[in-house]
């Protein structure tokens, strides 16, 4: 399996240290991403999806840290590399785009220069050469009038344009993996669709794998080939996205799929009461014992309160972490 | 616990100063200025005179205690006046905006441009020395920081959802300012006010040192320093003890200000509970 995998995360545990105690914010998370594959991590706030992404980029800062597990890129462990080695990976092999591009772009530097910097830094290009390639990069992300836009500062661009610039920076050096953390949450619906198309087209053309992080199950299922669902620090279900909506296996995923009002359901079924998931999302310091979903689960039994389920292979492919998976 | 330590040390220092002031008549060994006796002049600190005596044979310990009364009263009351002026102007300016905001802004800038001590000096020159005029002078001259803080807080708070909600519920402007804005800006304002009391005590000392504050023979810490300046080499205890009183009280107020900020935040309150 690891023969073709680009990134492999194995038994990852991320600790949050608070008040002298370490809480496992993420525990036992394993997944692989093949070359050129699109993989999604879905979950609610505090489920650990974003810090998992940050740990791959070695961007975790105290009080967060890697507690256990291995992260491999092309079979080589990267979780303990030194600062200089990590810097070489970032941008060149793995790059990342964030929810709010305004905070990730330097407000005092023209966007063209920020793109060109990548070529100078990672490929040793001259500034003149790099500036020329920056214009090309903007053409690739479908920014109109790129020759003028390279001179613009981030605040002069709309949200969609800024995210395009971020994508141009992230893909400048042809990385093998693009991590996108809620890349379209801050954008308007119609702009979101365009940015997703852009990411998909560029990555397919270059063979770049995508790790997409989002709270939007529908969006990730639509965008990615495989999807991992996280809940309270655990990867509770990992499925090909074509199966996830049709036959969700974990009670949490089943609940989510059933609870979301989707276009067309009212016309088909009338205005029914939506199926609710009761209770609230637990905080990192208060994850319940046993199966972490048991207080909110509809098929919970006594055993779920005590024993944390292990990952079970599903016959049709994929994993689920539940004693009573359907 | 760092924040607890701030609060405790600050609170204890301020409490000592306050108790010293309140109980001065009972704690003092002698009357602060009636019991002058030239026979006992400039005795160094010792068993009988804990803090020593001054050039007229008055007990420094008793005078520092009585001085606490005056210094703390001046500091506290004048800062109250500053806070009320600053919060009223800043809150209304930030919330209402428009010409009133422009006016208050202009006034604040003018106040900031004039060194407050010079302004206070001018007021003292008109009103003449004395406790009342000292309080008025200090209370009218250093509200600009509070005002700016209140205005900035009001500006950011008024766009909060709960202020909008209060408007839709039919709350009047005054009620919104008092129930929605003021409680949420109080934390930093109390911190500024506590620091301001310290500042006012220092200003009182400076004015008294210049001879424009509390007139002899009444003791305030500043006037005591003022009187002691000629003997600083021959009888250093005359300066050390009032100076130390100012230092510890202002330090205590600063620590207390930091500690209060943490208490006034309801989120940190529940974390401790």
């Amino acid at each position, binding site marked *: 399996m690891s023969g073709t995998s680009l990134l492999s995360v194995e038994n990852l545990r991320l600790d949050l240290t608070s008040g002298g105690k370490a809480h496992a914010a993420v525990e036992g998370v394993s997944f692989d991403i093949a070359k050129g594959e699109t993989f999604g991590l879905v979950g609610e706030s505090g489920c650990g999806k974003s810090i998992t992404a940050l740990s791959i980029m070695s961007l975790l800062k105290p009080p967060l840290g890697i507690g256990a597990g291995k992260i491999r890129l092309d079979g080589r462990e990267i979780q303990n590399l030194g600062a200089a080695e990590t810097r070489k990976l970032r941008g060149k092999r793995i790059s990342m785009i964030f929810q709010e591009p305004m905070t990730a772009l330097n407000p005092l530097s023209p966007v063209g220069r920020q793109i060109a910097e990548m070529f100078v830094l990672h490929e040793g290009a001259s500034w003149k050469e790099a500036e020329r390639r920056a214009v090309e990069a903007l053409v690739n992300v479908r920014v109109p009038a790129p020759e003028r836009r390279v001179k613009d500062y981030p605040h002069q661009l709309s949200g969609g344009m800024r995210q395009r610039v971020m994508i141009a920076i992230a893909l400048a050096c042809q990385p093998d993996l693009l991590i996108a953390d809620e890349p379209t949450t801050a954008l308007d619906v119609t702009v979101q669709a365009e940015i997703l198309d852009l990411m998909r087209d560029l990555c397919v053309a270059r063979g770049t794998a995508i790790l997409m992080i989002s709270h939007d199950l529908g969006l990730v299922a639509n965008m990615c080939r495989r999807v991992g669902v996280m809940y309270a620090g655990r990867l509770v279900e990992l499925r090909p996205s074509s199966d996830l909506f049709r036959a969700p296996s974990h009670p949490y995923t089943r609940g989510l799929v059933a609870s979301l009002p989707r*276009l067309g359901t009212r016309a088909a079924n009338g205005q029914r009461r939506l199926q609710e*998931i009761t209770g609230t999302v637990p905080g990192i310091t208060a994850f319940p014992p046993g199966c972490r979903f048991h207080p909110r689960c509809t098929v919970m039994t006594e055993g779920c309160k005590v024993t944390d389920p292990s990952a079970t292979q599903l016959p049709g492919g994929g994993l689920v972490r539940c004693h009573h998976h359907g | 616990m760092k924040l607890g330590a701030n609060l405790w040390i600050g609170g204890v220092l301020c409490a000592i100063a306050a108790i010293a002031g309140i109980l001065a008549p009972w704690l003092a060994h002698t009357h602060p200025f009636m019991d002058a006796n030239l026979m006992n002049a400039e005795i160094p600190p010792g068993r009988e005179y804990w803090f020593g005596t001054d050039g007229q044979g008055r007990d420094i310990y008793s005078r520092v205690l009585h001085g606490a009364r005056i210094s703390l009263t001046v500091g506290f009351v004048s800062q109250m006046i500053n806070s009320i002026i600053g919060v009223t102007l800043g809150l209304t300016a930030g919330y209402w905006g428009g010409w009133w905001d422009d006016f208050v802004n202009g006034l604040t800038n003018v106040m900031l441009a004039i060194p407050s001590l010079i302004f206070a000096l001018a007021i003292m020159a008109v009103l003449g020395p004395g406790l009342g005029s000292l309080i008025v002078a200090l209370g009218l001259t250093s509200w600009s920081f509070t005002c700016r803080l209140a205005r900035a807080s009001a500006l950011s708070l008024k766009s909060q959802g709960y202020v909008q909600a209060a408007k839709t519920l039919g709350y009047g402007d005054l009620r919104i300012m008092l129930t929605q804005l003021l409680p949420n800006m109080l934390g930093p304002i109390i911190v500024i006010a506590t620091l301001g009391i310290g500042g006012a005590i220092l200003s009182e000392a400076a004015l008294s040192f210049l001879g424009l504050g509390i007139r002899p023979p009444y003791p305030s810490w500043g006037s005591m320093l003022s009187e002691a300046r000629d003997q600083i080499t021959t009888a250093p205890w005359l300066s050390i003890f009032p100076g130390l009183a100012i230092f510890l009280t202002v330090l205590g107020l600063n620590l207390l200000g930091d500690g209060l900020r943490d208490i006034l935040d309801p989120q940190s309150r529940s974390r401790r509970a």
Partner: protein
Amino acid sequence: MDEATAALLDVKDLAVHFELGSRLFGFGDMKTLRAVEGVDLHVKAGECLGLVGESGCGKSTLALAILGLLTPTRGRIILDGKVLDAKTDRGHLARTVQMVFQDPYASLNPRQTVRRTLADPLRLHGIANDGEVADRVADMMALVGLRPEQADRYPHEFSGGQRQRIGIARALILKPKLVICDEPVSALDVSIRAQIINLLLELKDSMGLAYIMVSHDLGVVEHMSDRVAVMYLGRIVETGPWREIFERPAHPYTRALIAAIPDPFLPDTGTARGVRGDVPSPLDPPKGCAFHPRCSLAIDACKRAPGPSLFTRPNGHAVSCWRADELNAAVA
């Protein structure tokens, strides 16, 4: 009685403009932001109107104007039979229209207990009897699914979903007839949203409330709304019964909005979006039909004149597009 007079809310030709830019001694560049321009809409008692649009389309400004918190530049708002103007009694207005806010964290005063948040408006509106106030607070908390004994807690002691319940309780405590829900679930965790949507629908039925449901989430709008209005750059471009809008969208923008929703059952190919580029700045809207630069169907006429005024067909469907009839014919 025609539809408009029977309506709880009737908005006619409403415009809200803002003068932006700083002027020093009368010099400097002043720009007019036409946040809302010529909006007509009505909401009947007990009805849910879905208001859809992207950032900068003017839906928030429209909401503020209906709440009486902004003075319109032009047009009029008739609420419960009374024209809304400077003389309108604020108290009466507060008892007629209320709002549920998007962010349950910023919309509750952190220094007030739930009891105070709910009891103060009651006292302000003339209920002085302490027993009655306490009863109504307890009843309201039970109604939104909170335990009455939680009333003495502060907002930070509640989760996001519970806070939104408090926000709903505050909006309903004065028993209004119309509630404007501004993206009421978009700031909540996904697994909590169904709880709040169900609650809002239950309350609508049990209290006979009318809603204006402002949202960009078309799934939520379709699920909750009786009628839908689509806004783009300050104007309503399409309005009609929910089924008409979602099954036979007539404006290219509405179609684009619907096409932009990712379908979880179909891996996306990214074709046929029918829209390109970003939403223009409302400070500098395109000439002619405001949507034409992004519209794949735009013709010369669209660049010259703003979209035609809404003409309501017998089924209640109205659209402002020069090519609507052609497109409709093509679909039919």
